């Protein structure tokens, strides 16, 4: 009986355990089948942006990402963990691709056939220095990708870096996928005028020194996703209808007819981007930096381009802008005399600078001024300074977050503002706009100096160079210190229904190529010329009624055909109806510099320029096109916000100007150390205190008990 009961207990226990295991197996099975993922980081660090989601959801064909990667176990320890982020990111692509995206991992270091294939594709291993316990060693790292779309199109990324941020890999992957999957590229018109003065600098290994510069390299950057087409406005032509965005780069010698073409392009709702330059400084073989004025208008032009911009609400002038704040300036390299002989030094240069993401109304120097008891009027003016970059703008937002908050480098820029009266913008009715980039308040404008070369004669000695630099900066300081502190606009953006500049003005006629002069003959035999502007205003000789009877004469038939063809040609050349006001919203962006996208600067072929990277200008150009609505899918990609989460104990604005930074750092270290000790020991003291209290309480209870039972 007892034995049977025991057997029953065992059976029940075994059954329960088996049931439990079965239940657990079910949970594991369903959990692995339906995965739920959640990104709880406030910045959505591990979530692919809406841009990528849009691109992947629009895929019509399959994408295969071939990842040529060094295996994790062969990676240096420092980057091994970071590799996981790449794989997570690729996994996200697969998940979001819903069967349209697949990833294949290939190891070129273990299989020669794979290695050879990778090399054929242009993917190559890079040497990486690894610091071991005792010595440094060099390891070869492969980290490249081939993205294939639909079996026929492909894009290769030869090598990319390691980053703990998903956004880095997203920025690498999504644009090529978009580029491969797009069926028709948006068409963007380009009307660019090359520089006349030279660029580049052969002195320090640059190429193309002294040669006029074009704007082709940025086009290379953007050509994957856009069709950039040259727009010809000569011979009275208008902007083609299929061009919705027009880039007018460094306008020069514009005729009235060309201005009319631009005007009507805006009136038709086009997006016009103007890269202005009032003056260009040649970077000759000896880096002379002598000025060469850029005239916007052709010599025989009656109408001024700046007046046309003013009609639309943009004010620009012929002055040169410079920024005296060294923190925002670009640097020039130059050779100087050091302790160990000649060495390269860096010189901040006020005519090349960046707009930066800083609210200048809240800048440290304004606060210090307030503490020092500056006069109220001055302080009020200082507090009205605006941020250097308009962070509300979807395009420029990304500059505020990355690149140390710096906008693109501006080289010898000119001023671009909104038309205003009494400090308030006076824009045409139906138009809104804002200044998108500004200088720091330590800026000034001046008529373009004949030379902005701080280095003096290239034939002088190093001492002469030092003297020239001192003189240049002394003179510059004297000029800027005599000015009131003020900011100047560098880029404006407007949109709305712009009024035509040609309203109430004579419309410039088309200029047709001159017809070859005919020999003098019977004047009655000459055809009647039509009005060049209004082709069908007068009847042509071919359109005269005829009263010929009988079978058609072959000669007459030929003349009739020719007349028909001419009529068709005239119809084609006829201007569309003149628009006085844009019936639909147009967009106008004016940037006070074109050098930032010049070939020599984009290609980093601008020797001695210090840390400036031309890629910033290229990125600016590419982002600008995306912003203009041609490819808003990718805007979110560049604007992903990542909050800085760094431990700081001293507010930067709380620093006094005369405080020793090393001392501040030491104080911070001391504070951190004390705080850490308190945070670690605090809970321990609490536990020990509670322990002591419980012990005392127990002792007292024991004592009370013993007393109650008559013990001691």
């Amino acid at each position: 009986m007892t034995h049977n009961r025991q057997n029953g207990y065992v059976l029940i226990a075994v059954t329960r355990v088996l049931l439990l295991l079965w239940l657990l197996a079910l949970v594991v099975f369903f959990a692995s089948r339906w995965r739920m993922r959640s990104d709880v980081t406030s910045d959505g660090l591990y979530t692919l942006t809406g841009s990528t989601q849009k691109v992947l959801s629009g895929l019509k064909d399959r994408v295969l990402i071939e990842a040529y990667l060094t295996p994790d176990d062969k990676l240096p320890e420092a980057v091994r963990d970071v590799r996981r982020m790449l794989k997570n990111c690729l996994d996200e692509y697969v998940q979001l691709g819903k069967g349209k995206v697949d990833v294949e991992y290939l190891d070129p270091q273990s299989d020669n056939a794979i290695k050879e294939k990778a090399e054929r594709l242009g993917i190559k291993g890079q040497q990486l220095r690894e610091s071991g316990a005792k010595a440094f060693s060099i390891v070869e790292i492969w980290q490249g990708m081939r993205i294939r779309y639909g079996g026929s199109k492909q894009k290769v990324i030869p090598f990319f870096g390691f980053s703990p941020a998903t956004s880095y890999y997203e920025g690498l992957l999504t644009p090529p996928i978009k580029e491969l999957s797009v069926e028709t590229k948006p068409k963007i018109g380009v009307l660019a005028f090359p520089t006349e003065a030279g660029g580049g600098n052969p002195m320090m290994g640059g190429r193309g020194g002294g040669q006029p510069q074009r704007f082709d390299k940025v086009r290379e950057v953007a050509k994957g996703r856009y069709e950039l087409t040259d727009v010809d406005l000569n011979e009275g032509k208008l902007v083609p209808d299929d061009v919705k965005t027009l880039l007018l780069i460094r306008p020069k010698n514009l005729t009235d007819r060309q201005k009319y073409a631009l005007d009507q392009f805006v009136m038709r709702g086009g997006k016009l981007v103007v890269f202005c330059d009032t003056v260009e400084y040649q970077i000759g073989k000896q880096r002379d930096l002598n000025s060469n004025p850029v005239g916007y208008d052709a010599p025989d032009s009656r109408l001024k381009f700046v007046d046309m911009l003013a009609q639309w609400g943009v004010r620009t002038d012929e002055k040169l802008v410079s920024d005296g704040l060294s923190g925002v300036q670009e640097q020039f390299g130059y050779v100087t005399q050091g302790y160990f002989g000649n060495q390269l030094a860096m010189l901040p240069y006020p005519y090349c600078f960046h707009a930066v993401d800083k609210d200048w109304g809240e800048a440290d120097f304004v606060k210090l001024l307030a503490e020092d008891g500056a006069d109220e009027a001055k302080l009020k003016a200082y507090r009205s300074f605006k941020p250097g970059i308009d962070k509300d703008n979807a395009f420029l937002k990304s500059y505020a977050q990355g690149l140390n908050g710096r906008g693109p480098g501006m080289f010898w820029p000119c001023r671009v503002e909104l038309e205003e009266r009494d400090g308030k913008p006076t824009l045409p009715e139906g138009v809104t706009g804002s200044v998108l980039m500004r200088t720091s308040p330590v800026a000034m404008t001046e008529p373009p100096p004949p030379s902005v070369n701080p280095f003096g004669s290239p034939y002088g000695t190093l001492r002469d160079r030092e003297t020239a630099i001192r003189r240049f900066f002394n003179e510059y300081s004297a000029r800027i210190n005599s000015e009131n502190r003020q900011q100047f606009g560098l880029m404006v953006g407007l949109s709305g229904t712009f009024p035509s500049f040609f309203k109430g003005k004579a419309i410039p006629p088309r200029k047709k190529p001159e017809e070859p002069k005919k020999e003098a003959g019977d004047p009655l035999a000459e055809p009647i010329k039509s009005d060049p502007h209004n082709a069908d205003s007068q009847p042509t000789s071919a359109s005269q009624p005829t009263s010929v009877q009988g079978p058609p004469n072959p000669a007459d038939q030929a003349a009739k055909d020719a007349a028909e063809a001419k009529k068709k040609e005239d119809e084609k050349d006829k201007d569309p109806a003149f628009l006085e006001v844009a019936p639909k919203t147009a967009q106008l962006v004016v940037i006070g510099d074109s050098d930032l996208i010049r070939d020599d600067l984009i290609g980093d072929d601008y020797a001695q320029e210090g840390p400036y990277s031309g890629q910033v200008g290229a990125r600016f150009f590419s982002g600008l096109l995306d912003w203009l609505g041609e490819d808003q899918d990718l805007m979110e990609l560049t604007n992903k916000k990542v909050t800085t989460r760094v431990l700081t104990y001293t507010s930067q604005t709380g620093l006094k100007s005369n405080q020793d930074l090393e001392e501040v750092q030491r104080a911070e270290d001391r504070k951190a150390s004390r705080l850490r000790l308190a945070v670690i020991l605090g809970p321990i003291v609490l536990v020990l205190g509670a322990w002591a209290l419980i012990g005392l309480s127990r002792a007292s209870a024991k004592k009370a008990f013993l007393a109650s039972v008559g013990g001691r």
Partner: protein
Amino acid sequence: VFGVLFLLVIGYLTYSLDPNTAATMQLFFTFVPVLFAIFLPALAMRLWAEERKLGTLELLMTFPVTVPQLILGKFLAAFLLLLLLLVLTLPYPIVLSIYGNLDWGPVILGYVGAMLLASAYVAVGMLFSSLTREQIVACLLALGTLFFLTIIGHPAIQIKMGEALPDWVIAFFSAISPFTYFSSITTRGPRLARRDLLRALRGDHPLRERARPAGQEAQGVMP
């Protein structure tokens, strides 16, 4: 003593407030599984083994409570003590957030993960405590098991093991290690799913890519 030692070790090893470094609790949550594996057996060893050794288990069984209630009671006692210790580490993220704009989402999820991990480890500790009369034996058995289960899920250890063991063994270790799941919560580590297991069985484990023969890759046509 257990609590003081735990707080001292975890605070000393994982907590940093160095200026200009990232305000994150990632290191803390990386160490939590290992420290739990070391400290929890000491806490759980007494739960049943001591009762059996002192002969108080029989007395306990005479109380008007059922066996599941007893088990649950002992489990909760150990679990709540651990929970209290985790609560005592809350000043760490609070101070970080004051001086460094801490992202609370992963931290809260990390604590939730640590609670779940603690409950699993307490259960394992209780199992070994119930198997023997000797506390020290129960402690060593639990320590060995938990430590083994923890480290076999660590990517660095898996890479080392991968040099000697077949992929499916590595995948199996990943599947049974609590570290795999805990790290996927706190640091978004490798998530192991059925798909990954199948890939591993095909010789394509995500944690350890092996070179494929060139002939196997897609040539010209999408797979």
